[in-house]
């Protein structure tokens, strides 16, 4: 071909997943256009506190292995994750850590100068690497610095304060291919099309659907919802993680990382309800360490869904909460204050700043809050090769078969479709990718999945643009009409919102976007978090339909044609309502309990019917809940066979005590 235009890749999102992808792709010689609503350095990933998991030499000598990390992740996720990608991720984890180490991440060190390790939920081995209690921030900065290096060399172009509005897709049915995006500059409000041979969505989670969560303000899930509305499938939406330990606030719930328990923090309430002595005055024998009692093996470090349900049960059903409220103690006061500063300084500061007490001397009061979405855009992968019978820790991923016979395990490095959605050329990395965490994510596995996606599946993107469909039909060669049409469609939506400004209706709560968002958050938190029931979910679906109807005549508060934040927020409310419906409908139809999804009316796991991925497909012609067509796909469980997920609970027969009412996480006392 003569004058073949240079291929380009768009990465939407500059959190850990987006930055890792940008670096890997740019390094491979393909220029990257990086879009983010905030300067990438301020992305939500900076909030991550506790750490990042990987097998390591010390753990290995104690009997741990990459395979065990994989097994824990599958068991933690209650078998809902396809095993190929998880296996590959666990195998690559040590390399991810090494790379971050080379980039200068100040990981905590042992006396001798090696990387220190801490315990984390769902494992009995120390396999979590950390940088104080601001690990996410430190990893982000390392990747941000490398991205800046590529930016300085002209290989990455940043579009910050730029909002992704729509994926540009050419073709129909099976032949659909993503060839660019429409984005809006959040300052000038200009709507523009950008061409690309592949688009990587790395836009994070959707905590704001639940109003208050531990997430940052831009975690609306709006971008994922727009891809979904444009034809990408959304998987396991109902799998929402509620973190056991957060401090409720007026604007968000601030997380107190699992690392607090990893470093020895103990969860307890007074044995006698209504005991209002100061915690320090309550003798050891009169404290109820309910997690340690029920789970002698894992103790305070059971996975999050379990800890959350237990705390919820103690507070809501047994009325044993501290000060008769929805709160329990998370106690670190038995540890040396200096040790706490060194290992957990970041969260100690947050607690002190926002609550006013010093957790080194006073037990923290915490309650569960919405934290993470295991669900996300559905993605594919090409199975790779793996030796399941090899001794733990010895196998090498990505080896060319035949190695010991078995083909079809792990992921095939560089295969074009790894982490690709059902639309060719549209990828999903990081939290917005549903692939790794099944029905519950283990602590410190998210950062890993983000960076693993960026590096490992980044290669897939490069191979796709250089050798796949774009090499035949580069986006740069396509007719301008398609791009113009997409821009006018989006501009039309913007104009309609701007025209909705109406001083006569301004005070009307029914069509106020902020009001609609609050009602959505309250409804979703009440019905779709810790404990769900069919009856309650049916009401939620009605409520969401009502909100969608009100949203149809939403009234914007600002007609400015520049820097109009209300416009961006209002637009995302519409997109969040769509995701909320996917989450609620998925919850209603999954008539079983698995991981974070607990149905009071179906308290058992039902592998027969539901060892399956929920796939939602959007029908633009459908109205209300009818717009979402749910189908179920089998999950691959060839390596780790499903077993009961009890975490050694001592009264394993007595099922989780009967919950009274649907949960209201994050709305403590």
């Amino acid at each position, binding site marked *: 071909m003569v004058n073949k235009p240079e291929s380009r890749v768009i990465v939407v999102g500059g959190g850990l997943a987006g930055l890792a992808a940008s670096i890997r792709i740019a390094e491979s010689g393909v220029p990257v256009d990086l879009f983010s609503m905030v300067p990438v350095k301020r992305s939500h990933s900076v909030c991550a506190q506790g750490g990042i998991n990987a097998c390591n030499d010390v753990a290995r000598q104690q009997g741990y292995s990459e395979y065990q990390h994989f097994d824990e992740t599958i068991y933690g996720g209650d078998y809902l994750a396809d095993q190929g990608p998880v296996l590959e991720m666990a195998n690559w984890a040590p390399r991810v850590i090494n790379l971050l180490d080379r980039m200068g991440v*100040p990981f905590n060190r042992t006396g001798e100068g090696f990387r220190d390790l801490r315990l984390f939920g769902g494992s009995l081995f120390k396999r979590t690497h950390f940088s104080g209690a601001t690990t996410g921030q*430190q990893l982000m*900065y390392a990747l941000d610095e490398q991205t800046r*290096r590529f930016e300085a060399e002209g290989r990455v172009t940043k579009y910050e304060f730029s909002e992704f509005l729509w994926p540009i897709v050419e073709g129909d049915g099976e032949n659909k291919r993503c060839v660019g995006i429409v984005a809006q500059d959040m300052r000038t409000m200009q709507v523009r099309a950008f061409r690309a041979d592949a688009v990587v969505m790395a836009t994070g989670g959707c905590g704001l659907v639940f109003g208050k969560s531990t997430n940052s*303000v831009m975690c609306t899930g709006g971008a994922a919802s727009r891809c979904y509305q444009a034809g990408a499938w959304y998987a396991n939406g109902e799998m929402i993680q509620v973190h056991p330990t957060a401090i409720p606030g*007026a604007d968000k719930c601030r997380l107190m990382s699992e690392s607090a328990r990893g470093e020895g923090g103990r969860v307890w309430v007074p044995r006698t309800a209504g005991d209002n002595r100061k915690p320090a005055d309550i003798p050891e024998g009169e404290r109820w360490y309910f997690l340690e009692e029920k789970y002698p093996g894992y103790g305070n470090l059971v996975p999050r869904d379990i800890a959350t349900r237990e705390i919820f049960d103690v507070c809501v059903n047994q009325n044993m909460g501290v000060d008769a409220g929805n709160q329990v103690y998370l106690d670190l006061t038995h540890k040396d204050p200096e040790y706490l500063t060194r290992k957990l300084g970041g969260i100690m500061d947050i607690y002190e700043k926002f609550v006013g007490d010093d957790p080194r001397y006073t037990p923290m009061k915490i309650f569960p809050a919405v934290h993470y979405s295991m669900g996300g855009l559905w993605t594919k992968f090409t199975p790779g090769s793996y030796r399941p019978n090899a001794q733990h820790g010895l196998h090498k991923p990505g080896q060319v078969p035949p190695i010991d016979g078995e083909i079809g395990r792990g992921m095939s490095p560089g295969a074009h479709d790894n982490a690709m959605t059902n639309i060719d050329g549209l990828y999903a990395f990081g939290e917005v990718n549903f692939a790794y965490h099944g029905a519950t994510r283990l602590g410190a596995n998210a950062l890993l999945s983000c960076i693993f996606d960026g590096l490992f599946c980044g290669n897939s993107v490069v191979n796709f643009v250089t050798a796949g469909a774009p090499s035949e039909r580069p986006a740069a060669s396509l007719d301008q009409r398609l791009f113009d049409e997409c821009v006018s469609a989006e501009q039309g939506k913007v104009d309609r919102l701007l025209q909705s400004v109406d001083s006569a209706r301004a005070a009307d709560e029914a069509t106020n976007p902020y009001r609609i968002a609050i009602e959505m958050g309250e409804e979703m938190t009440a019905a779709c978090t810790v404990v769900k029931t069919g009856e309650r979910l049916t009401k939620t679906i009605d409520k969401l339909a009502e909100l969608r109807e009100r949203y149809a005549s939403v009234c914007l*508060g600002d007609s400015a044609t520049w820097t109009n934040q209300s416009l961006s927020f209002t637009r995302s409310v519409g997109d969040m309502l769509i995701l909320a419906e996917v989450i609620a409908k998925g919850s209603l139809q999954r008539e079983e309990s698995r991981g974070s999804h607990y149905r009071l009316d179906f308290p058992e796991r039902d592998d027969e019917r539901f060892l399956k991925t929920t796939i939602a497909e959007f029908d633009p012609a459908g109205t209300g809940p009818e717009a979402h067509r749910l189908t179920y796909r089998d999950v691959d469980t060839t390596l780790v066979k499903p077993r009961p997920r009890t975490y050694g609970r001592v009264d394993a027969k007595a099922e989780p005590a009967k919950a009274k009412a649907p949960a209201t996480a994050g709305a403590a006392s």
Partner: protein
Amino acid sequence: MSAVHVPSETERIANRKKAKPGRTVRFRIKRCAGHGKPASWEDFDVVTEPGMNVISALQRIAANPVTSEGSRTTPVVWDSGCLEEVCGACTMVINGRVRQSCSCLVDEYAPEAGDVITLEPMSKFPVVRDLWVDRQRLFHSLKRAKAWVPIDGTYAAGSGPKESPDRQGTRYALSECMSCGCCLEACPQFTIEDDDAKWDESFIGAHAISQARLFNLHDTGKRLESDRLEALASKGGVSDCGNAQNCVKVCPKHIPLTESIAAMGRAVTIHRVKKFFTSKK
């Protein structure tokens, strides 16, 4: 403007104890349609809730933007992200002093009904709108300082250099800088510059000097030490610092900025001397 007051730590603790939820507090907000456009003040009354911070007050105002005089206006524009003081987005000038608005608790600043809190955008960066400013220059300084470790590439190549816990501690403390810009707002030597062509020669800022130190402390990062010192030795570098030490007082992350400035000042001097002798050969 009536004089408003930044409460000391003891006052903040006391205020928190006496503040009652449900009181009405006044926010006096500087509004501005963009850089170079005239600014004006608008007052908003907000009913407090337990644990309320400035951001949640702004959220209430955005939902129903009616001024204290009862006239409907446009929602105030501001920047925020994490809401827990780790992303640096929400920096603004509150009661005359620069800080993060997410960690600014209304009870601590306005314990009595009728108390006033003033919010202004930072003055050292061009206003985008209202309280939102454009801090690109701050990131540009990080490019000048080559604030990165020059790794070979992202493919597996073993672990990084071993490091003592002490060294890790020093680097970690420096690495917590969240690019919030407080140190620049407070610095008398750092003045607003909206022409990005001039950024390479205007004062680089305390944050970037400190980042240069951070990367010079890393075994691989050191490879770029002389480039960094060269940048700090040139126009707008470390010698522009007048040692007023305002920066360190406002840094929310307690970055030892004056220590970094002193260390880099010395390193630049040694670098100059070395260069003088080597260029003579």
